[in-house]
């Protein structure tokens, strides 16, 4: 799948089911019968993918909440979005 771009508007796959277990999160996608094992940060990113905000806006929101290494954070968020997209948990409008 193509890399997520900053002006893409990612939208979460609403058929996925999410469950939190202590500090871990599982995301089950019935369309491919895959269960993703993700961390809490990734689950927040997945929930922010509403199809209205661009990738850049999602990154800005998270950078505001967690000030610090902006470039590192942007890279991590893009990696997470690409991984979620590879597993059909998000797509791009």
């Amino acid at each position, binding site marked *: 799948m193509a890399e997520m771009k900053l002006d893409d508007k990612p939208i979460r796959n609403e058929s996925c*089911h999410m*469950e939190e*277990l*202590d500090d*871990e*999160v*599982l995301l*089950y996608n*019935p369309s491919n*019968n895959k*269960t993703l*094992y993700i961390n809490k940060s990734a689950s927040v990113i997945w929930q922010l993918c509403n199809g209205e905000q661009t990738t850049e806006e999602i990154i800005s929101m998270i950078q505001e909440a967690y000030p610090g290494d902006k470039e590192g954070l942007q890279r991590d968020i893009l990696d997470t979005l690409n991984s979620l997209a590879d597993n059909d948990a998000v797509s791009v409008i």
Partner: protein
Amino acid sequence: MYTRTLSFGDSSIEIVTHSDETSDLVEMLFKGVPEEGINPPHARLEISQDRDQDYRLTRDEKQIYKGDSLAALANSLMDTSIYNLADKCSSGLLFHAACLSWKGKGIILPAQSGHGKTTLSAWLLSNGFDYLTDELVYLPLESRQAMCFGRPLNVKYGAREIINGLLGDNKDDESIVAGPIAMLVPPRLVRADNKTVEPEVNMVFFPHYRADAEFSLEKLTAAQTGMALMSCLVNARNLSADGFPATVSLARKVPAYQLTYPDFEGVLGTITGLLGEN
């Protein structure tokens, strides 16, 4: 004509045969499967014989198997029965797993085919565990009471030598159905006093036989357990939210381990030790 109903969970099917030979086969294969069910049968399997004496298995008149091998018929009948029972089961979680009981404590061994469920089950059976199934376990929603699809041990030929060692003098018993890929072995031939029970599941072991590995036991987190259980849930599409919340709920309640082993040394003591502590 002989008719046998098979019920499992909330699903039932009917098997019809027309000869003593095939009705005896059905009795042997499904001895441990209840007849009384909640719902009427939703599918009818029929075994007949042509003029040339070939066996013919049909599902609602669609041909599933035709040939002269009773063993191949048995394998096809078993696979078709399991598929059709699982297909309509919607009142609980149905896992592709083996299940055994030790001193009233249940363990399930969920795994895909080829991970050693049957061989490990047979070995545990020979060491005092009660064998319940090597294929399918049903847990009603919000319950840990295991109902098991009580079929004979389905031994692939790669494990024949080990199983023959466990069978001893029973290895040529006439009730063993030897087919081209596997043989079906009644559990009583491994241990005569094997009991059929419906234990509460106390522990989950994900078995993985690897000849080149060292023995290892890894305690899994609830998330790891949930993820591994989902890959063995066979009726997800019949369940609310694909059975995911119910599976995760089970993963939260029951301790689970990844068990990798090159042989059986250490396996028995490890499992009974953990069950004893629990």
